[in-house]
């Protein structure tokens, strides 16, 4: 079983309410749910849609195929009707074209009006979908109680009748239920979580106690998540006046002994570039989230991209060590954030997490969260009398103390400095210090996680970050077609492990798949390995790749 719904309408019409309700019903009935959001940079009007895919097994990508299109307005019909091949279209529609899909006209708004208030139109739509699919409405009833009990009996009752009305009107249309077999479960314990919430949860689990940020799509969700947990876990969440302040605050917080993080998108990251160098020079651990969206400049604020890889690796003047980690899905994001905090503290370097709108907003289903990273407790040095913040050491890392914890003083400087931290103009000290900092790279390479590898002798799909699930599913398809496709997928995109050249020499026919124009991972790998990777798939239309689209593109490059 593998079924896809698309729910469309104008911003503000409630697409998200319908989609959230349905996703949760499916989830509670034991289906694996996968959702993606497509929206514009506006608050009302325009066109927005959410896609929901459900199956009996875990899902990791979205397909092109749409089995059921739910139209909250005519525009949704006009734009998407032809995408439905054999399935159904629900809504109050003017059918202005010949279609292979079955159109079931249901006027959600009118039905709701007849029940007393058109604000329940969305619940009518939910009922209609459940009715069409032949699913029980019991889990939706429970959800209605959960959401609305506090709003009073009337609201609950109205929602419940809207739900039933939607269901009945479709059932009475005479179409047999779409799902032949239905699950009886209505209290399944699987969870549905998107990348942003998972990142926030990871930060909480890492012991982050200071999160400063300036709002920016697609990372504002993390800011909101942290704010929502602020009182519960004692986390200061501060909306900064700009991104420069956001990062400088986080650096100050880290210097003082907190686990600190900031989050933004490309444009805001640009403003953090100077601060990144400050963190590096003062060797202050810091975690910076960059949720990518298409640029250059403001670009497409609500869409997705993998265009910032080379930028964040080289951001800030002169040279210093850093990690760049690009999580593959929400669960991995949660663990990656914890790992980011651990690595930032272990090496006293900035760690950049590269997310994107696709990862941020897409929801994945998990039976449980494999919580396979745990936060290291802080390893602060004691500030004794002779404490030296930048003591020269073999691996480049010096004992880090926090001010106020001992008689020793903690002196940090953005200028080149001596071992005590005081500004210096002694150029031999400069050389020593630059070498100390750069020396960290040696051990850092031992701590990067190797790319995830699945064997396959015909070709190898290579990617990084949020494309993981898409590559995974594409690989299955290829396998089913008898093509033995391997997978080689990076979470840790910088630095690379030291054996990267040997690995790629042994990798059968790599095809590098990325959400950017230039092929940035490909170029980095070329720089690092001296090999050439002419076979690439690149997209830059602001949308995540769909499985069919990728398979089609793969055919092109491999033929």
């Amino acid at each position, binding site marked *: 079983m593998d079924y896809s719904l698309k729910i469309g309408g104008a911003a503000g019409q409630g697409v998200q309410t319908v989609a959230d309700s349905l996703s*949760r019903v499916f989830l509670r009935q034991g289906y694996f749910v996968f959702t993606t959001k497509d929206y514009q940079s506006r608050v009302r009007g325009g066109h927005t849609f959410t896609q929901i895919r459900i199956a009996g097994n875990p899902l990791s990508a979205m397909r092109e195929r749409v089995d059921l299109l739910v139209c909250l307005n005519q525009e949704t019909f006009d734009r998407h009707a032809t995408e439905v091949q054999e399935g159904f279209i629900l809504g109050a529609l003017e059918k202005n074209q010949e279609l292979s899909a079955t159109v079931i006209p249901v006027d959600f708004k009118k039905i709701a009006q007849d029940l007393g208030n058109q604000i329940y139109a969305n619940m009518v739509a939910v009922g209609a979908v459940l009715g069409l699919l032949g699913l029980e409405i019991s889990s939706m009833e429970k959800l209605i109680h959960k959401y609305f009990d506090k709003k009073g009996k009337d609201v609950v009752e109205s929602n419940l009748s809207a739900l039933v009305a939607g269901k009945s009107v479709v059932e009475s249309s005479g179409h047999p239920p779409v799902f032949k077999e239905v699950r009886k479960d209505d209290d399944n314990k*699987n*969870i*549905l979580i998107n990348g942003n*919430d998972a990142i926030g*949860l990871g930060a*909480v*689990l890492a*012991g982050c*106690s*200071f999160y400063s940020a300036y709002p920016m799509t697609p990372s504002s969700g993390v800011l909101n998540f942290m704010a929502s947990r*602020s*009182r519960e*876990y*004692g986390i*200061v969440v501060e909306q*900064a*006046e*700009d991104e*420069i*302040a956001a990062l*400088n*605050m*986080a*650096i*100050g*917080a880290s*210097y*003082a*002994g*907190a*686990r*600190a993080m900031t989050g933004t998108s490309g444009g805001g990251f640009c403003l953090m570039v*100077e*601060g990144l160098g*400050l963190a590096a020079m*003062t060797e202050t651990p810091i975690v910076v989230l960059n949720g990518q969206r298409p640029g250059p400049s403001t670009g497409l604020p609500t869409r997705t991209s993998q265009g910032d890889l080379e930028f964040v690796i080289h951001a800030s003047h002169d040279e210093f060590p850093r990690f760049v980690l690009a999580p593959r899905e929400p669960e991995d994001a949660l663990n990656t954030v914890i790992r980011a905090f651990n690595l930032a503290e272990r090496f006293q370097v900035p760690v950049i997490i590269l997310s994107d709108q696709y990862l941020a907003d897409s929801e994945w289903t998990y039976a*449980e969260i494999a*919580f396979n990273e*745990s*936060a290291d*407790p*802080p390893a602060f040095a004691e*500030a004794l009398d002779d404490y030296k913040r930048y003591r020269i050491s073999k691996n480049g890392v010096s004992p880090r103390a*926090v*001010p*106020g*914890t001992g*008689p*020793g*003083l*903690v*002196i*940090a*400087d*953005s*200028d080149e400095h001596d071992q005590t*931290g*005081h*500004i210096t103009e002694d150029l031999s000290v400069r050389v020593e210090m630059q070498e100390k900092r750069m020396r960290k790279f040696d051990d850092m390479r031992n701590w990067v996680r190797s790319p995830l590898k699945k064997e396959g002798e015909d070709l190898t799909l290579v990617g990084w970050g949020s494309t993981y699930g898409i590559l995974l599913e594409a690989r299955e398809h290829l396998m089913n077609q008898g093509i033995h496709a391997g997978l080689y997928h990076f979470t840790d995109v910088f630095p690379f492990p030291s054996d990267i050249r040997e690995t790629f020499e042994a990798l059968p026919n790599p095809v590098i798949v990325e959400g950017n124009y230039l092929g940035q991972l490909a170029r980095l790998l070329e720089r690092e390995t001296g090999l050439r990777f002419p076979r690439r798939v690149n997209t830059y239309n602001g949308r995540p790749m769909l499985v069919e689209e990728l398979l089609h593109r793969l055919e092109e490059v491999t033929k």
Partner: protein
Amino acid sequence: MSTIFDNKVENAWCPGCGNFGIQNAMKRAFSELNLEPRNVVLVSGIGQAAKAPHYVNTNVFNGLHGRAVPVAFAIKTVNPALTVIAESGDGCMYGEGGNHLLHNIRRNPDITVMVHNNQVYGLTKGQSSPTSEEGFVTKTQPSGNISRPFNPLSFAISQDASFVARAFSGDIDGLVRLLKEAIRWKGFSLIDILQPCVSFNKVNTYAWYRKRIEYLDEAHDPENRLQAFERSLEWGERILLGIFYRKKRPVYQERVKENLGVEDLLYRGFESENILQGELPRFR
């Protein structure tokens, strides 16, 4: 006078610079307030003034040009037991860093902001600064500065800053007194310190200031915002020193304590497995 705040770092200022007075006053104020080096953090930006923390035996965060205030804000928030002072030049605080000053006045964290105001960019060799007078001629402004000078006191009072004062680095006793009040004050305190730059500012010299400075008289009521504003506009034949404005306002760090119920943000240790289990039902 030697204090526990002396250290042996070589000083890079010009002989006769007004910064020395500020440094001495600061050490004296710290001593008289019985502060301990380990519990003080001096945060600065970049510039001549911004080197000051290196010459004082305390914790130091010498960060980026213009960005001392957000760093200081965060340090105080994480560990309110520390005495946190942001200290830098007029270019750093009012030019590059203007936006942070503005918004931290609004937050009202319990930090002190000391501005070494020499009305010039010292370290970069004499360009006009936000407080340079109109007509000030430099290599970069050969026709004279055409921007109106920034008035930090009026600015701070206009946004209801909690504590607003002006001092003169040539009057160390007065500066010590004001510094002590500013540091003791619970909330955001701005102290603009007139500081002669003997190398690049040949207009606003010690003599120039000495002829003009005068302390606010007894009649001045620092709780009176309008009066404070009116006084802050004066600049010319007479230049007023002292506490212009003072207003008790809820302090950021205290609000954090109220809202979150925590004393500081240092690592507390926690049961992450339990947190995770508590979180999961929210995603159903």
